[in-house]
């Protein structure tokens, strides 16, 4: 629920931690609040679809008993892909990025695998190329602030109740960031091994980060995420001596879902293996 305008569970905020300016969307309608603005607090009946339907959020309509398939209705064949709108927008974003020589990478993982730590280090150790970051979390500006402290521009997308980024959120974030041509756009998705897998953002590559404390069976338990991976980064290898984690088994499980996928063991803490990560990133633009 957006606390600026009190508008319900699907609200999304895109915050520039530098200026505090907030852009947010309700079901596809984007508007901007200046920093500190208190906003429209009265939950008037309103529309999210250009006046076609109206609703309020303070009164819950009674759920009607689902009627039996009734007479007097007309069947309309639709055959429409539910994710069609997201996928079309992702396609536009992909073309928009390519036209500006921008490379976008979507980092996905369970919470705490080390995505932000990996990004902080990547920012500090990448010379000669601007890195900008889109940070997705349900709440807080913490990760965007860490990225700024590491020296890169970032916007935070707070998804509220939402458990993943979608194409529209990345689009809004890119508009807010306005990266210079040739930049690397790193997208840190909401920490979650399930939902982000379904939503194309318009990125060039999908990276799944998994840390050695999570167990080598994770690909089998979260097959959708791993079947969509272009690269698997295995983080926290400095902790391998302390946990039962079989790197070969992890690799085999990941490849069972995504044949031939590359697995890069790294430690974002010690820097071990990061050269291969930087090479992989550099080759994406080629």
């Amino acid at each position: 629920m957006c606390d600026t305008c009190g508008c319900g569970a699907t609200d999304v905020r895109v915050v520039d931690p530098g200026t505090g300016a907030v852009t947010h969307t309700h079901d596809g309608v984007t508007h901007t609040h200046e920093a500190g603005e208190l906003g429209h607090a009265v939950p008037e009946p309103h529309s999210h679809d250009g006046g076609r339907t109206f609703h309020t959020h303070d009164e819950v309509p009674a759920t009607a008993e689902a009627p039996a398939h009734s007479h007097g209705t007309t069947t309309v064949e639709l055959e429409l892909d539910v994710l069609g709108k997201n996928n079309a927008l992702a396609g536009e974003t992909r073309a928009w990025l390519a036209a500006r020589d921008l490379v976008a990478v979507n980092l996905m993982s369970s919470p705490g695998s080390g995505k932000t730590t990996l990004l902080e280090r990547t920012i500090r150790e990448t010379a000669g190329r601007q890195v900008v970051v889109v940070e997705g979390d349900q709440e807080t500006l913490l990760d965007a602030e860490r990225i700024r402290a590491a020296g890169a521009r970032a916007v935070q997308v707070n998804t509220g109740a939402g458990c993943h980024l979608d194409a529209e959120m990345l689009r809004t974030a890119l508009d807010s960031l306005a990266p210079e041509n040739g930049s690397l756009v790193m997208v840190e998705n909401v920490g979650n091994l399930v939902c982000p897998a379904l939503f194309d953002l318009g990125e060039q590559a999908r990276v799944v980060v998994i840390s050695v404390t999570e167990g080598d069976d994770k690909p089998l338990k979260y097959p959708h995420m791993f079947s969509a991976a272009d690269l698997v980064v295995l983080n926290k290898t400095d902790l391998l001596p302390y946990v039962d984690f079989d790197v070969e088994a992890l690799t085999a499980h990941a490849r069972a879902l995504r044949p031939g996928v590359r697995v890069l063991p790294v430690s974002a803490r010690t820097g071990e293996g990061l050269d291969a990560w930087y090479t992989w990133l550099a080759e994406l633009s080629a």
Partner: protein
Amino acid sequence: MHELSITQDVVRTVVDHTDGRTVAGVRLRIGALAGIVPDAVRFCFDLATQGTTLEGAWLEIEEEPGRGRCRVCRNEFEMADLLPLCPCGSTDAEVVAGRSLMVTSVEVV
């Protein structure tokens, strides 16, 4: 739980294609490999339709089985999950069916 946002996308898709008419029923096709739990969609549907032209509509979900095509022997086989295992023993296959997430038709008043 992405099923709530998926269900909201279902509602938006229907509203966008029914010209403001009251919708009495919705039929979906959800693939076994789509990563969507039909029961979770059913659970979210009443909430997602509140205050829209779909409020009170029934929901029918047709489940589409998963199929893969083996890259070794080229045969098609049924896939119950995303781990391909062809009867020939190969584990290298592409998904050819079962990823659908479609609004197939609606009943309008």
